């Protein structure tokens, strides 16, 4: 098998390599390490939440701090863990997958990353401020959020700051994919991971500025006397919800689409079959992205909208199930009669397909206006979005790390430990989140530190699952560090059935990959 090797390979040394980097692999590594760190910061907050909910009554923290934990956990996990992990993977893999030397705008790429630690310094510093960290929920609904103390401007500026980072990252990915593909890598030959990231980037650039506008209005409402969200001055608090969710719903797909891309890489590799319905996958992804801009008000059915609005947003939401169904059936058809093996990446990918679908179904339930009045703001919603985000997005990210880790480090990870990590994660996350469906249907509200005695058993089960999931992730850190330090040498084509240009590059991938456009053969372009 031919490899696209490189003769002189030198990485700059010392701190400057990381601080002033223009290398997509180094920046990708920084993103991934940052995301993992934030995963544990946000995870620690989740542990506080589950500890408090272990038993009814108030045990460990006061309600204000509990609400801060709920709020900051969400912001950290969304903006600090899942999004940066996705961008980190995009940084590492997109240039390798399309035959580019690097990202299109390498210096801007570095700034996208370096904003993140400073942005989170801004956000996390609010935990130590007068009046505590923001506690009105990550959705920042007025008028509640306007009661935040000294933390308020720092919350708003952190959102602006992180938004700048994401927009720059997205511009970079679009420019890379449209401008840096090697000759022969036509759009419809690109790996699906690349496709999902282009579409995600479009969502980022279209939706994050709207969030920036919304939080700017919050800021001027609190400090400069405007009345965007004050009915006494002719505004409307509900207007914030409309603007926020115009961002918020595409944001959901910003978290989910890269996961779809990962799964579309991993399943064909371990089923040893080409991806079923490649073109339909591309079109389904694009349809989901476009539809995501016209469904936002399904997050606010109970707020008091005209009936026509409720009906429109319900039907538009149901429509999303169609392209999503296309994807799920395509993944199943890819596995159908495949010569499947079940290494860790494949285990996470299959779990993703099953558990994301459960989250998708509960999403359809929530999307139906009449019944949403029952489910709204209950633990059913919490169960729903953790199925799509944790057993969905996070499982896909785990799958991606196991799939590409040997390419990054040059060593195989410990397969046995990887499988143990998978089973611990898969079981504990279901123990954690499945009972929350029942709690929600029985009427337990979200974002409240105490609950009725009737919810005690399911909450205790859920908390035990939570602690188990949290502990299991320490094993993941151990596996990654162990793999980075050494082990069995990885082959260039790490997985026998894996397709794509990245497997023609040596393992570990050299610091600079393509200095001249690679000559692509037909087999390099297979899916």
């Amino acid at each position: 098998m031919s490899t696209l090797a490189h003769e002189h390979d030198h990485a700059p040394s010392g701190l400057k390599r990381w601080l002033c980097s223009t290398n997509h692999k180094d920046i990708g590594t920084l993103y991934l390490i940052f995301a993992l760190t934030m995963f544990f910061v946000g995870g620690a907050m989740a542990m506080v939440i589950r500890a408090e909910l272990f038993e009814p009554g108030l045990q460990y923290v006061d309600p204000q701090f509990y609400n801060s934990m709920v709020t900051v956990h969400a912001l950290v996990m969304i903006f600090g863990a899942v999004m940066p992990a996705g961008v980190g993977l995009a940084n590492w893999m997109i240039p390798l997958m399309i035959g580019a030397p690097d990202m299109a705008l390498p210096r801007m790429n570095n700034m996208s990353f370096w904003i993140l630690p400073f942005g989170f310094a801004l956000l996390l510093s609010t935990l130590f401020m007068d009046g505590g960290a923001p506690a009105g929920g990550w959705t920042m609904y007025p008028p509640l959020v306007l009661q935040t103390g000294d933390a308020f401007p720092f919350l708003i500026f952190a959102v602006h700051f992180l938004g700048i980072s994401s927009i720059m990252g997205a511009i970079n990915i679009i420019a890379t994919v449209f401008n840096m593909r090697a000759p022969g890598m036509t759009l419809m030959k690109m790996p699906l991971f690349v496709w999902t990231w282009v579409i995600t980037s479009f969502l980022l650039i279209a939706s994050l500025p709207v969030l920036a506008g919304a939080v700017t209005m919050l800021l001027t409402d609190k400090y400069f006397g405007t009345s965007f969200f004050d009915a006494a001055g002719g505004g409307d608090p509900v207007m914030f919800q409309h603007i926020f969710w115009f961002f918020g719903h595409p944001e959901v797909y910003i978290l989910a689409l890269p996961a779809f891309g990962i799964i579309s890489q991993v399943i064909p590799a371990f089923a040893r079959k080409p991806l079923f319905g490649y073109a339909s996958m591309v079109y389904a992804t694009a349809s989901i992205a476009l539809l995501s801009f016209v469904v936002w008000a399904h997050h606010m059915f109970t707020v008091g909208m005209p009936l026509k609005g409720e009906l429109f947003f319900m039907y538009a939401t149901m429509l999303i199930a169609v392209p999503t169904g296309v994807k799920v059936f395509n993944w199943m058809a890819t596995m159908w009669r495949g010569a499947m093996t079940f290494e860790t990446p494949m285990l996470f990918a299959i779990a993703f397909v099953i558990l994301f679908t459960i989250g998708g179904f509960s999403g359809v339930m929530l999307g139906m206006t009449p019944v949403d009045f029952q489910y709204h703001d209950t633990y059913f919603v919490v169960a729903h979005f953790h199925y799509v985000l944790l057993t969905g997005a996070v499982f896909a990210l785990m799958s991606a790390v196991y799939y590409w880790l040997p390419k990054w480090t040059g060593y195989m990870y410990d397969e046995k430990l990887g499988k143990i990590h998978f089973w611990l994660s898969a079981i504990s996350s279901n123990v954690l989140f499945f009972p929350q469906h029942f709690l929600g249907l029985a009427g337990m509200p979200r974002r409240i530190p105490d609950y009725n005695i009737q919810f005690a058993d399911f909450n205790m089960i859920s908390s035990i699952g939570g602690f188990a999931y949290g502990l299991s992730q320490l094993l993941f850190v151990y596996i990654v560090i162990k793999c980075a330090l050494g082990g069995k040498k990885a082959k260039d084509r790490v997985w026998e059935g894996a397709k794509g240009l990245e497997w023609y590059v040596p393992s570990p991938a050299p610091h600079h990959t393509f200095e001249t456009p690679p000559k692509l053969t037909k087999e390099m372009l297979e899916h």
Partner: protein
Amino acid sequence: MAGKDIYYVPHGSKWPLVGSLALFTTFIGGGMLLNSAPGAKYVLLLGAAAIVYMFAGWFAEVIAESIGGKYSKQVDTSFRMGMGWFIFSEVMFFAAFFGALYYARVFSIPWLGGEGNGGINGTHEFLWSSFQASWPMNVMPDPSKFTQYSDVIPAWGVPAVNTAILLTSGLTVTFAHWALKNAERAKLSFWLFATVALGFIFVFLQAEEYAHAMGDLNLTLNSGIYGSTFYMLTGFHGFHVTMGAVMLLIILLRCLKGHFSNKDHFAFEAVAWYWHFVDVVWLGLFIFVYWV
């Protein structure tokens, strides 16, 4: 320019890190200022100075590399895509504020006046039953909390003049571009200077109009949803025009230094795109904020 057969990756640079730190400092300063913390304005000033330093340093490096002939056609295309999508993100930022304006005019004010949904949910009946929907709405639902204004800025005064100024500046910048492409240096400088001048005249007239609105008409940010949308939309636009005019000025100075050839002048084009973008946003403002 180098050909497409060799890829170009720029060497490492401190500017991204400086930029992140500069923004970080600015945001801390801003947060401190809003919390009335001592010394806030010095932190804010330090941050702003660092942002200027970052822009100057980063652009100086890029300009030197560009003039040094390091950039390929492919790098040029990356810059073009970057600028285009950046402008798109700016469009979406303004869309949020236009959305707020439409929402207030089409939904929240009529509802507060008792129409449609407002008649069902009881806000009008129980909270402010004497409120009557109107636009511009100079009697708020709860007048005690807000600054009442006597009048709004009519469309067919200064705003119409400003529309003419910005549209003309869109033409002059195009004339300058044609002159640059035909390598007519004197014409280029003349038309570009005219564009910069028109830009600053626009900002000056806008500032005069603000002074009139606040001083004589008592129209402020605190004047209910009309004042909020009026000042936030025109204010962010005015800020963008100011930035655009400064960018044009820098491009003018670079033209005078002979930085651009008639074939290779992306910086000029990027600023021209930006200028057209602020122009189009203004047309939206003129129609929906001032006119209808």
